[in-house]
């Protein structure tokens, strides 16, 4: 339990991930499913950026001439930076598929679309 308090960021990321996962598996509304997927993505970003954190670390930007202060790990930041932009565009792809689903079935709810078919 104490160890979990040290790693509060990790714990929050895990709980966020589970909230997103629950949303994805339980909601039949496609838009809500996409929101759940986005929450899961954000949880992973949060976890990875937290891994690179250094207590009292500065942003990883070197000022020429000055002695470098302790800086946070730049690697997760660089990875997540691209991942955020990619996640925005893939979310747009999900949303466009949901839009087509709506144009076809007249609803974004998967259960309702199934009932209509019968």
């Amino acid at each position, binding site marked *: 339990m104490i160890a*979990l308090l040290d*790693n509060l960021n990790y714990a929050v990321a895990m709980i966020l991930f589970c909230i997103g996962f*629950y949303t994805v598996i339980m909601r039949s509304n496609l838009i809500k499913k996409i929101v759940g997927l986005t929450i899961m993505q954000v949880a992973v970003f949060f976890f990875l950026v937290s891994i690179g954190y250094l207590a009292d670390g500065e942003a990883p*930007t070197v000022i020429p001439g000055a002695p470098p202060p302790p800086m946070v790990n730049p690697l997760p930041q660089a990875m997540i930076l691209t991942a955020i932009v990619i996640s925005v565009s893939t979310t747009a792809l999900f949303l*466009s598929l949901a*839009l*087509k689903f709506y*144009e076809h079935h007249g609803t974004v709810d998967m259960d309702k679309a199934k009932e209509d078919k019968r």
Partner: protein
Amino acid sequence: MKRVLAILFVSALAALLLYAAALLPPMGDADNPTNQHIAPRYLERGPEEAGTHNIVAGVLLNYRGYDTMAEVAVLSAALAGVFAVLGKGRTRIGSTFIDGARVEFSIVSRIAVILLVSFIMLLSIQVILQGTNLPGGGFQGGAAIGAGVMISTLALGFGRTQHRVPYSLRAILESTGILAFFVVGTIGVVSGANFLTYTLPGINEQAQAIARTTMLIVVEIGIGVMVGAVATSVFFALLREKEAHDVDRAA
């Protein structure tokens, strides 16, 4: 029943993940394996090896340039997917939900939005250009460009924004990121260095530094313009025509 099962499953997953999180080394400790592995090398020798004072940009463009190039390609692929599903967003002017809104934006808020968007665009240009040495870079600046276009569309309507960034222009801008990577990489290969090392062998050190900074900034600008254009195109493609939609529903 399904709900209970789902809650049980998700709780078990949460317990497992939290147990794993408790076993990880304490966050922010300088002795963590993640902070010991490769980060010290990046932080110590980044400015000299990658040519950027902003180490994140150095990792992104130089140390892991191939990775970033492929991620930019993924961006193009996602955009191609949106276009394949929805069409290219050639909606008729003045027919979207935004243009057909019942409540018009007042003149005050429209002028305020025009002012705001001009400052957002200035900010994004600065963020892109300072990316090699200060916090910033192509991805962030491009996202700001996209946000500016979206705000402008919401306030001024699709028609008035769209003719400033027509499809024919965006089609070219959407490929600038990969093009910049390929051009810069190929210049390096032609002059005898490796792909994407941002070096030109056979010139003196001072010219080398200038050439490297120029190449890095060219790639940053390419990425920034591309991300902005992709965000704009995706947003425009997701806008639907009002009448066409109503006709679809009636049929």
